[in-house]
């Protein structure tokens, strides 16, 4: 729309009754503001409590939009084995869930398991880049497999020495056989070489491989220099620490893999930190109904129903409150997501007050 000012030189330029002659868009009322709403960087207590930092509100948001594949893929970005953790993880996310203070937690682990199983058929490792670097993985624990998964993704040539054990040896008792078979297949399809009949010494491996990954169970005599990424005094040998919490173990495996990837790509490895957590006090509970959690999720309908209970702390789930409540129509709705027209936003803060999940905040104008 063309916006130009109406020039009034005499009363003859005006109608008898005071009706609009143009659009008021000519007046950029946004200049009045001294604060502006922005989409703030916040995180949910669940994702913060998760050792793997799975973006829980994000995958739940996909679920509420019935995009279960996208939800599954979102989990895979952070956790290669949701079918495993979805069964045996201690689920600190659920302990942290803000909804505990309202009625009951969201059944996050159930959702993870359900989506993990759902995506398992379609799951495959997308190999990004090709490296001449060879990694020997000495052992079969889930945490080592997590490292294998990420290393394969990164284009490393990975060989697993199993000492006669099957992959995922540590969870064989807890996870159904068919699930683990599929997980094995995913790794095999990515070109993983498994050597079961030989158990070479570390020294032998060091001659043929650039890096050697050990499980902490097999590295009791090793001196670990950097526990976060498993560095030892020997720069070729890395140790993945096994912990009681399987999610933490997987995290350790992933950290080693990411560290090596960064190192090979000449980048600096950085451990990820999530922004400030949205507290329960910041949730406007008026917008939610009391509803019990679904303890066991068997169907997609149940999963979606449970997903709708989520407060989605700190993650915009396109609820549209800001758009609806903005008294100046300064919140625009683009691609199912809010954006601000600062030419007309007066900084009243109604959007911030009405965001039920702490996504928006007011920042001072410069």
């Amino acid at each position, binding site marked *: 729309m063309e916006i130009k000012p109406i020039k009034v030189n005499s009363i003859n330029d005006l109608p008898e*009754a005071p009706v*609009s002659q143009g659009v008021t868009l000519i007046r950029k009322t946004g200049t009045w503001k001294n604060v502006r709403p922005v989409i703030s960087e916040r995180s949910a207590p669940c994702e913060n409590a998760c050792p793997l930092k799975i973006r829980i509100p994000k995958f739940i948001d996909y679920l509420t939009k019935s995009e279960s594949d996208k939800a599954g893929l979102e989990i895979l970005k952070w956790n290669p084995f949701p079918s495993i953790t979805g069964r045996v993880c201690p689920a600190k996310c659920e302990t942290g869930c803000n909804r505990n203070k309202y009625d009951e937690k969201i059944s996050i682990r159930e959702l993870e398991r359900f989506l993990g199983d759902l995506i398992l058929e379609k799951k495959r490792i997308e190999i990004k880049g090709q490296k001449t670097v060879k990694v020997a993985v000495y052992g079969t624990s889930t945490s080592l497999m997590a490292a294998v998964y990420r290393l394969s993704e990164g284009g490393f040539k990975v060989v697993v020495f199993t000492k006669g054990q099957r992959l995922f040896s540590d969870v064989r008792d807890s996870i159904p056989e068919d699930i683990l078979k599929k997980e094995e297949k995913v790794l095999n399809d990515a070109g993983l070489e498994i050597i079961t009949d030989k158990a070479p010494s570390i020294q032998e491996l060091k001659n043929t491989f650039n890096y050697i990954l050990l499980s902490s169970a097999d590295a009791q005599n090793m001196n670990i220099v950097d526990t976060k990424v498993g560095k030892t005094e020997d720069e070729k040998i890395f140790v993945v620490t096994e912990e009681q919490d399987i999610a933490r173990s997987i995290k350790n495996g992933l950290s080693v893999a990411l560290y090596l990837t960064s190192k090979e790509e000449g980048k600096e490895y950085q451990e990820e930190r999530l922004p400030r957590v949205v507290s329960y006090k910041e949730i406007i509970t008026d917008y939610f109904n009391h509803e019990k959690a679904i303890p066991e999720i068997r169907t997609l309908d149940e999963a979606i129903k449970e997903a709708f209970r989520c407060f989605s702390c700190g993650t915009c789930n396109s609820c549209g409150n800001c758009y609806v409540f903005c008294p100046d129509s300064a919140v625009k709705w683009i691609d199912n997501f809010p954006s601000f027209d600062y030419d007309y936003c007066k900084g009243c803060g109604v959007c911030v007050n009405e965001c039920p999940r702490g996504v928006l905040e007011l920042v001072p104008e410069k």
Partner: protein
Amino acid sequence: MSIKKVLTGNHAISYGAMVSRVQVISAYPITPQTQVVELLSEMVADGILDAIFVNVESEHSAMSACVSASAAGARAFTATSAQGLALMHEMLHWAAGARLPIVLANINRAMAPPWSIWTDQNDSLSQRDTGWMQIYVESNQEAFDSIILAYKVAEQVYLPCMVILDAFVLSHTSEPVEIYDQEKVDEFLPPYKPAVAIEPGKAFGYGALAGPDTYMEFRYKMQKAMEKAVEIFEKEGKLFGEMFGRTYDLVEEYMMDDADYVIVTVGATTSTARVAIQELRKQGEKVGLLKLRVIRPFPFQKIREALKDRKKVAVLDRNISFGYHGIFYQEIKSALYPLKEKPKVHGYIAGLGGRDITVKDFIDIYHDMKNREEMEEIVWKGVKL
């Protein structure tokens, strides 16, 4: 053919609205007005009047409904009294500012507290500066006639108009009223065309924002419309006389030809004053009467013309502007200010809250005025000191 009916002032107003073919009526009941819209609602229900009757929960909403109806191009009508009119206040400004020729019948009732249902003019005079035209009537026939005339003038200058009559003295008192032939009224009062027509598909904002660069121009236009309304009231009042036999002006003179002394009245007390003037004339006193009919637009030239070369003027106010004086007293005085030789003007406050103003009161006022020297002093007629 016209017919004569015996009607209360309230019902005369209803008939006035009926023959004016009002299309939207929205009102909230309040004594002493209720009968006006009660009869109108019956007319609508009986199919005698082709209009929409909008029930509302307050006078503020009643005027809001009239505002939107009038903006949409419908002839809108409402009626109220006292506290009801006060509650409408915001929307009265809206109607005038949006240049919507709504007609409102206000039955003058004293403002509370103390609670009162009887007549005085403070309710309508509190709304004097809203941009509404105001006609004060003396009889039920004049009430009926003034509704038709109000629409005729309002729809030419695009300003709303109040027709104002005294509680009980007129509103609940029956008098013969001539109801004119509908065809003749239609001939006098053509259908209403709004200043800016609302059309589907053509979007604009009514009552839109005007910055400091344009607001004053709209106010200037309103004042010019008021000024133009003086001429139109005179012209249409004459035409009304030609068509229906009753001529109206903004002021009316009675026995003024050789009068040295003049009493100025507004509303139903004028009839009482007429009797007092007749008696005083019999006694050889040179006294006349000036009735103010339209007070907005204020006909100061006509007043000046009527009162120049008189010795003294007594103004009867059934109202008071607390801290100064009667409101008409102030306005008459200001109208005479440009004259070189000014008559002395004395103000009398009487009949507040419906207290009777008798013929004797007017005779007393006349003698008081003749002997009084000091202006500005408020004479409280009949107050129990």
